């Protein structure tokens, strides 16, 4: 099985879907001539031409709206945001147009559009370039939101997103683009709405997504060294969220730590906690704990940034607390 980067996995997904359906096109800043700000779209302009790989001005609101209008006109756009931090400007289009078009037209106008780009912090990019937008975006009915953590999931979820007839938001990660993983050859479609156990365990469940999957896996290793068995559940899909998978894991381990990149207040983990306490109350031997980013804008300094982010040590400490060991 080939081992490729997350970036190349996305590239493969785009290429395959554009070959398969000529109404699929890519639009965004630097996606064409520059080969992509993060090289995700490398080679696509050469293969598909300028009509289908469109470089835009810096106008997130504008080109998000153009994508939505094109979808109203029967095309299947993939709109790239250089980072989701810049997509805040486009939120009016995503939330007020894309998410609601089907509903407010009484079912007449479908919106088969994908918005994708890197989400969350990288390294020392400071506060305006480091935000995790999961809880803002997953809040809105009419949207689907996915966050692949591995190259295989990235390819499979982006392909599913492009084929989905609803607006799908794909949250990638700059820190993930270079990571490598096994990606099976042939058609690979990961269903939207399905979580994945990345590491089975029996003493505590670590629920995570995107970059925090690596954090959770490292924590599980450390816990194993202490004879504690942690199960790592990768959500993969934030809206819809895989409730049965979450509940099955809690029924096994009776203890949960949620690991998330965003801020604590009203963060995506709060939704996980609601599901767990509401549906698995009698399974819990301890309260559910969350390991999140510190409730501060992301600082520039390297040490401070490390302090702000979730880490394996913080996850281990939380796991030990729910095990009543500390």
């Amino acid at each position, binding site marked *: 099985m080939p081992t490729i980067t997350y970036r190349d996995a996305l590239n493969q997904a785009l290429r395959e879907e554009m070959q398969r359906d000529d109404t699929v096109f890519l639009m965004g800043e630097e996606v064409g001539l520059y080969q992509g700000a993060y090289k995700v779209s490398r080679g696509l302009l050469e293969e598909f031409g300028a009509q289908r790989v469109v470089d835009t001005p810096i106008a997130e609101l504008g080109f998000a709206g153009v994508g939505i209008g094109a979808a109203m006109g029967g095309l299947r756009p993939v709109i790239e945001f250089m980072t989701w931090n810049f997509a805040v400007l486009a939120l009016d289009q995503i939330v007020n147009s894309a998410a609601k078009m089907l509903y407010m037209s009484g079912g007449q106008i479908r919106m088969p559009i994908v918005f994708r780009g890197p989400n969350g912090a990288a390294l020392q990019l400071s506060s305006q370039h480091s935000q995790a937008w999961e809880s803002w975006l997953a809040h809105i009915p009419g949207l689907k939101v996915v966050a692949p953590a591995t190259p295989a999931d990235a390819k499979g979820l982006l392909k599913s997103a492009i084929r989905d007839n609803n607006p799908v938001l794909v949250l990638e990660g700059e820190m993930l683009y270079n990571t490598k993983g096994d990606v099976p050859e042939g058609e690979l479609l990961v269903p939207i709405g399905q979580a994945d156990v990345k590491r089975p365990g029996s003493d505590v469940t670590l629920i995570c997504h995107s970059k925090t999957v690596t954090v959770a896996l490292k924590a599980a290793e450390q816990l194993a060294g202490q004879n504690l068995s942690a199960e790592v559940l990768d959500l993969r899909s934030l809206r819809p969220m895989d409730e049965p998978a979450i509940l099955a894991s809690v029924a096994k381990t*009776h203890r949960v730590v949620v690991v998330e990149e965003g801020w604590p207040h009203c963060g995506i983990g709060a939704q996980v906690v609601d599901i767990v306490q509401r549906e698995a*109350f*009698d*399974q819990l*031997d*301890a309260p559910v704990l969350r390991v999140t980013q510190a409730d501060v804008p992301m600082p520039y300094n390297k040490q401070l940034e490390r302090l702000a982010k979730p880490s394996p040590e913080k996850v281990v400490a939380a796991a030990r607390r729910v095990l*009543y060991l500390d």
Partner: protein
Amino acid sequence: MPTKVFMEALSPTMEEGRLVKWTKAVGEAVKTGDTLAEVETDKAVMEIVARADGQLLQHLVAEGATVPVGEVVAFIGAPGEKVAQPAPPAPPPAAPVRSATAPSPTPAPVPAPAPVPAAATVVADASRVVRASPLAKRIAKEKGVDLKLIQGSGPGGRVILRDLDGAPARAVAGSAAPAPAAVVIGSGAAFEDVPLTQIRKTIAKRLGASLGPVPHYFLTSEVDMERAAEAREALNQQLGDAAKVSFNDIILKGVSLALARHRACNAWWQDDHIRYWNEVHLGMAVAIEEGLITPVIRNADRKSLSAIGSEARALAQLARERRLKPEQYTGSTFSVSNLGMFDIDQFTAVINPPEAGIVAVGSIVPKPVVQDGQVTVRRRLRLTMSCDHRVIDGATGAAFMKTLKQMLENPLAMVL
């Protein structure tokens, strides 16, 4: 048929409008689209326009009046047309006006329901709640384990899964069976949690600082066991070879009954509150090879002497064989330690936290005492009670000891 003019909904949230000014007078000719009046809405000053041609026949609402949306405010019709007089809007009822302006007379006092102090309500509820994780609760229920008898190791005494490890499926009939629904002391619940008063908190803090975590003090009382000895001999003659009653049994029974009358000594220190138990579960210190263990006689105050005796023997046996199950050595509300068989005159025992007291039993020894002015020989026993000063004050402990002494000196009192 005259056309009604309504107070219209001029904004999505408007519920009423204040008619600021009539712009057409009664009797004036109006055309569709003419402004009839200016109305102040929740958002702006808007206009009511005529939706028919004709003559404005009547103003039903005066300038300055506030009128709900949908109410008729005027009529348009042919000149001279009669309008069926609608019932004039009821004038605002006098009563509210009066009560708004005049000082309200004191109404006949409605007897307020006896105020239940918030603390009492909280306590009453708390007494029904055992702190346990949802999982522990569920498993305890499935296994038939009484959570009240498990000392939780989680924060705040929370019973968690590992506290139930080894708890057997289905309660063993007999010693572990929950008490039958009989009359229980106090509120009817197994225990009552009382938050610490300021005095208690201060005592706890100061004594804890001076004496250590559990601030012990000791009360010694010498008890005349002559009558108890006579009663015991008589009983054992009756019982024959079957289970004999021992002094220890009598003392256990006496302590249990005294606790039933002095609930203040039958309690657990719980950091931020004190749990006063309404049930008496007596821990009995038993020496075993490796040390000491305290099996528990549940509801000892309600068991007969012979029941206490047989249970004590059985538990001691199990203890020595190290076959005691957790529910057999946990959950005691008070303890007794007996070193009389080692010829110890008296000693001070260490309290088993979270209990608040323990009675140390010395040996029964014939001694010369003064009675009715005469020196006589009586069998005497020295009991020493250790008290946690945070829970039991001196006078409280002393009162308990006095009751205990009375019971042992006059065994028939135990039957009362």
